[in-house]
């Protein structure tokens, strides 16, 4: 298939593409803002809530260490959540548009 065959503006305007776009945008920005907010809590917490971070909870293990380790878990969970949604939902929606792309005029 040659590239000139595609009517990009029409695909862009297609309700299926618009639906994918809307879903993806909302989901991605939600995750992005969530992950950034959670990450920047770490420098803010160590700087302004030092006493809370020093509270020991499990032997010498303190809130600060727990929070730092939780950052890893949260990053992994966000990656997993995104990958799952993209693999199942977004890919299928995109595939439908790809299959029909030539007919969208």
């Amino acid at each position, binding site marked *: 298939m040659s590239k000139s065959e595609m009517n990009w503006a029409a695909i862009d305007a297609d309700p299926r593409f618009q639906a994918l776009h809307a879903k993806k945008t909302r989901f991605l920005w939600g995750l992005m803002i969530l992950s950034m907010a959670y990450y920047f809590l770490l*420098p803010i917490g160590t700087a302004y809530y030092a006493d809370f*971070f020093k509270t020991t909870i499990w032997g010498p*293990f303190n809130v600060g260490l727990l929070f730092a380790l939780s950052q890893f878990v949260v990053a992994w969970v966000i990656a997993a959540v995104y990958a799952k949604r993209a693999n199942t939902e977004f890919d299928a929606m995109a595939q439908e548009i790809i299959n029909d792309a030539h007919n969208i005029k």
Partner: protein
Amino acid sequence: MNFKQILSSLPLLAASSLAFAEGGAVADEWKWLTFLVFGGIIALTMYITFWASKRVHSTTEFYAAGRSISGAQNGWAIAGDYLSAASFLGIAGLISLFGYDGFMYSVGFLVAYITVLLVIAEPCRNIGKYTLGDILAFRNNPKASKTIAAISTITVSIFYLTAQMVGGGVLIKTLIGIDYEVSVIGVGILMLAYVVFGGMVATTWVQIVKAILLVIASLVLVALVWAPYGFSLPGFLDGVVHNDGIQKQVAKLIGNAAANMTPEELGQRFLEPGLFLKNPIDQISLGMALVLGTAGLPHILMRFFTVPNAKEARKSVVWAMAIIGGFYVLTLFLGMGAALNVGPANIIALDKGGNMAAPILAQYLGGGADSMMGNFFLAFVAAVAFATIVAVVAGLVLASASAMAHDIYVGVIRGNHASAEEQVKAARISSVIVGIVAIVIGIAAKGQNVAHLVGMAFAVAASGNLPAVFLTLYWKRCNTGGIVLGMLVGSFSAIGLVMMSPNLTYPQAVIKEAKAVLEGTPAKEAVAAKESAGFVCELFAVCQNKEGAKPATEAKPGAIEKLAKLNASMATMADPAALEKAKKDAGKLEKEIKKAQDDLKKFEGQTTSIVGLEKPFFRLKNPGILSIPLGFLCVIVGSLLFRDKRAEEMWDELYVRQNTGIHAEGATAH
């Protein structure tokens, strides 16, 4: 205390702060073992290169490994590319010296991949070909965007690369005593062999092998460090809290405040924030550069073109996050384990930045400096660190060479009219040029303070590249005017701010410090805390920034005076043990005196830093908090000021293609 010198914007092998170990950490009788392990790893990578060289004929194979790397493989390769000596040795070192704060660096390096995963990897894979320039040229003016992207790629890569080369040279010298120049040339030649003969295929597999070795080495060390505590987390941390060496290190770090604390409190302090990172604005600034900069690093972006499609690109980031995150969790145990078993004082004695923490821990766990296993472990970790540097540098050289050959030569000079053979030839020649430049810079930068360079690479990537890529992908009005203005202003402001920051060497401060070591310091009265005159004052040295109260300090004698006293008392010492200790102390003092005198000589008559400042004008070490918003703002302003019909017309196509992958560059048939 000399810690100011090693405070760097990012942890890495700080060449300037190296405490030189004569002949290296490995004793001469065990050198053969080291060479054997090094030889083994080098032979393995050479075999990979030989194998790969038969598979590299076209440009797609040279730059993108034929787009036939799987998601999982690419995930390992990204980890191999990203876990540089700076993060492996540097972060373990920082944790071993400063505890909790060192670990905080690890977090930012992982979270960075969320940005890569969510907004960068898949769209870039869908619309790009080989380089950052290809992504930007999709809708912007191709020649203008390729030119500026190439300049930025080469700049960022050279910063990163110089830090790696200098770090590598210093590492090899410290560990096995090979001359700095010889190691730099060795790293350069090896890396050139991978890139020139094996292109992206060899580079990818060297990175994969190296990442696997790194993970295995770290797992073994962590298992050995943790096993005595029955793999109990509180048990292990309890060991840290009650460790004498760690308590002493904390006492040294916090100075007078230590006087009223019990040994347990001092040990516990090691697990709490604030021993290294003291300025929250600086930390947020660093965090911004990390989480946005990684997505703008050309050598990382380039990796996404090696997989067949966007789905595999996504998979590779998920794999990379699992590997990189897992590794960074291990650094907590590596660093703390080194502090526990080897002791911060001994780590500092080898290298002030703590970079030798992991290798020395390996030697200790294997059985110590006199045992065969100890030296084998050390050799193995050192060889992995060496492979790390070579693999990372290879990735950087490939990124620079692709910018030079594909963007500038083929794209701009030849207007995309170059035959396939010419393109591969241009790629190889560019690799050789960049490789030679890397070697020359590596040698020229010997003994220089390169600590700010990796930070600068991240800052430029976050302030220049990321806003341009991001807005090109997601903002309809973005155009050529915007990305040119944004990349120029973003990059130059990041570089400019670092050049005015405390990262650089300021001769007056060094001289003052050296004099304090030699002649001692007089008693000082307590100083009350000062209030900040505003947010701007926290960034620039134009008005009073916030300063904590300083307690009164007593006069301290200088090293010369201390040495004289010690020598006098040694004459009357009868106890052999006491005499031995006194001799050791005298040796330490002599070293301190020599270093201070060398510093005085080196900076004699100089009053300003290389940009002509007597003291830092920009107060932060990390420019991101200013330069990143500025980069975004300039892309927006530039786009609104200029009109670019092509950028507008191409928007629909770009947006559809980046979301669906229609017409994305496919894998080459095999």
